[in-house]
């Protein structure tokens, strides 16, 4: 049997679940209930979109705020210190808020030689990209902004536009350090997008869907038993290898240490961020933390079961499916899993030294890409065998 047919069989097997809930996004649904008669449809849609966008913006802010605080505490405790302890009282929980206020009040400087328009536009593009990507992330089985069957593809695609923003920031700053940062970002992202995408193909083949919702639902059953533990890494050993590749590539995509070359502090001062200050500077960090979260979500959904844990399975057995509590549990599960990933990223950042640019390139092109391709092949074989055996 040819490889092609094998892949075809793997993909076309009928394992796409029926969608548990077919509807628009939950904001629209919510609004539809209170929609006045006189409101024209376009205005209603615009309102719904506006509210959804506001929700995503708030979500990014909260994620960034929490992540920054978490990063400071994690790094603090790794480094034999406490991190912020005073602002807000309990363990300095309001430190990021205070920082945010400080950054907002700071003078917004644009260097004289900078390309003003692009300098202004760059943070906007970076944020727009990550907002768009976050819109594809479901909050739970019934709560989502857009029901996307190409969820992960959308996330990767829109997430990649942030690269352009970073490159734009570096170039517009008209500083040589920034330019170096921008060039490193461009080179690095181009190199790691391939292993990132290819390694994701492995769980995609296992689960047979691009949709985050379906992928999560798919991982509920282990050997036909709805126990919430049929995670992709458990059902296929090559997914574990793929996850390692995915994770390394994700670190590079989100420019986290040890791949923080675009802003390498000790080499490029602050790389593409060198000339930025105040709230513009913080936009880049919001993007960075949101991207970390998003990558962790993708990792959690496609490798580690998404919303699924034995708890959700139990709730389904107790016929609580579709309720608010069920959705809340799903949401909490995903957020916990994602933040476990974020924590792993932080742990790595505060432990490892930075790699050099030629090592980054070597790793991306020479090792990760072929390994990812090998993983895809092996996954295909495994899935086909599983298909033959289990059916």
């Amino acid at each position, binding site marked *: 049997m040819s490889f092609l047919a094998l892949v075809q069989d793997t993909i076309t097997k009928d394992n796409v679940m029926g969608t548990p809930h077919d509807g628009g996004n939950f904001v629209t649904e919510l609004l539809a209930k209170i929609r006045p008669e006189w409101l024209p449809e376009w205005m209603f849609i615009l309102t719904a979109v506006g509210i959804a966008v506001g929700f995503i913006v708030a979500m990014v802010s909260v994620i960034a705020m929490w992540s920054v605080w978490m990063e400071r505490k994690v790094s603090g405790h790794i*480094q*034999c210190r406490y991190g912020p302890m005073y602002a807000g009282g309990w363990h300095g929980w309001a430190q990021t808020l205070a920082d945010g206020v400080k950054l907002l009040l700071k003078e917004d400087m644009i260097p004289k030689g900078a390309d003003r328009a692009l300098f202004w536009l760059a943070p906007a593009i970076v944020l727009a990209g990550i907002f768009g990507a976050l819109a594809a992330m479901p909050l739970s089985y019934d709560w989502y902004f857009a029901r996307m069957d190409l969820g992960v593809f959308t996330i990767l695609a829109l997430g990649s536009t942030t690269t352009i923003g970073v490159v734009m920031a570096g170039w517009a700053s008209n500083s040589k350090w920034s330019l170096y940062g921008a060039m490193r970002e461009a080179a690095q992202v181009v190199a790691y997008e391939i292993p990132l995408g290819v390694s994701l193909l492995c769980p995609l083949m296992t689960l047979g869907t691009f949709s985050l919702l379906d992928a999560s639902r798919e991982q509920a059953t282990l050997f036909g038993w709805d126990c919430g533990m049929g995670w992709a890494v458990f059902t296929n050993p090559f997914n574990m290898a793929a996850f390692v590749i995915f994770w390394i590539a994700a670190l590079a995509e989100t420019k986290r*240490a040890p791949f923080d070359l675009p802003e390498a502090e*000790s*080499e490029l001062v602050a790389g593409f961020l060198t000339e930025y200050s105040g709230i513009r500077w913080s936009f880049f960090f919001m993007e960075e933390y949101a991207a970390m979260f998003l990558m962790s979500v993708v990792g959690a959904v496609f490798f580690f079961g998404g919303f699924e844990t034995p708890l959700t399975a139990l709730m389904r057995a107790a016929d609580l499916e579709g309720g608010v509590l069920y959705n809340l549990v799903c949401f909490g599960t995903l957020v916990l899993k994602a933040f476990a990933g974020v924590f792993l990223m932080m742990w790595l950042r*505060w432990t490892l*030294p930075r*790699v050099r640019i030629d090592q980054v390139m070597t790793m991306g092109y020479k090792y990760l890409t072929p390994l990812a391709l090998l993983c895809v092949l092996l996954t295909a074989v495994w899935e086909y065998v599983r298909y033959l055996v289990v059916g």
Partner: protein
Amino acid sequence: MTDLKQQHTPSIQPSSEEERILPSGEREFFFDVSTSDLEINMGPQHPATHGVMRVLLRTDGELVTGAQPHLGYLHRCAEKIGENVEWLQYLPYTDRYDYLSAMNNNLGYSLAVESLMPELEIPRRATLIRTICAELNRIASALIAYGTYGLDIGAFTPFFYAFREREWIQALFEKICGARLTYSFIRIGGVFNDAPPGWLKEVGMFCDVFEEKWREYYDLLVENHLFVMRTKDIGIISEEMAYDFGLTGPMLRGSGVDFDLRRDMPYMDYKEIWDAGVYQIPLGRGEKGTTGDCWDRFYVRVQEMMESIKIVRYCLEVIEAGPVIGDVPKVIKVPPGEGYVGIENPRGELGHYVHSDGGKIAVRCRVRAPSFVNLAVLEDLMPGTLLADSVAIIGSTDIVVGETDR
């Protein structure tokens, strides 16, 4: 600056000279795209130059094709001051050039002045306290070198670990002399005052704890795979090159030269300690790459911390009660003469040339600063490396700008 501009000729003609052996052993060619070189200022406010030093880099993409250190941003006329203040008054100024190992600077200056005073006898207890302080300060300095090198490579956490122990050393110094950074503790003729009760015991405790923590340092950076990848085969200084540039201290030993002033030209009681077989001289042997690369220099510094601990332990064993300062008047008059004493500073040979005409003030007070000499090697090491490597190379020279500029 002008020099660099004259050399600035975009390389269009491909030639086999542009072939470069990468650290991984592969051969790389730079020939097909003719790009214009970028002149870029690293410093004076760059985080990796360890102070206000400036390196003018000429880069071709990520490749550094030329480097020129510019000094003098921290020049404080230390030598001129030495000719204008009394012998003892100059002592606090010695703290300030290599502020990370102020005890050793005090020691070097005191020994140089004492070399002009043949009648002066240094009590044994003073010598041992001097040794303890100098070695503890060597550890503190090596900890900074360890931590900041981690920072240069991109690892943040080791820096904090190093500061944890350095803090203790500073607390110890604070207990003995009241200062944490610039001590002025080792005086001409001895040390300023005796160790407070319990101090020597606490030093012993520190030694015990440090030995455990040192293992942590070793695992965190020295044997870290990414760290080794970044530092091996980078900035290789051969033995001949080290001689040529007059390198001393860990820079020289990193190139595999077995030379340590403490053993080979002993001053104070180091001969006795060596004869007792207490410590060894760690050498760079090219375990991870080539002898004399950045990793070797770093390795030597990390190993030296342990050797210093051994020396401190020996001193704690043999120390006895007694006076801590010789017969030195309030206003010191140094007999005429000129002397040079070089001691093993954490960064290399710290030499003091002092010239007295018999008065209260030095005629000439020259400081041969190891960082200043070691820095000159950058010009040769950096071309042909990547931008990130150049940072690693600067870090591996472990300069203190206060000392290069004096």
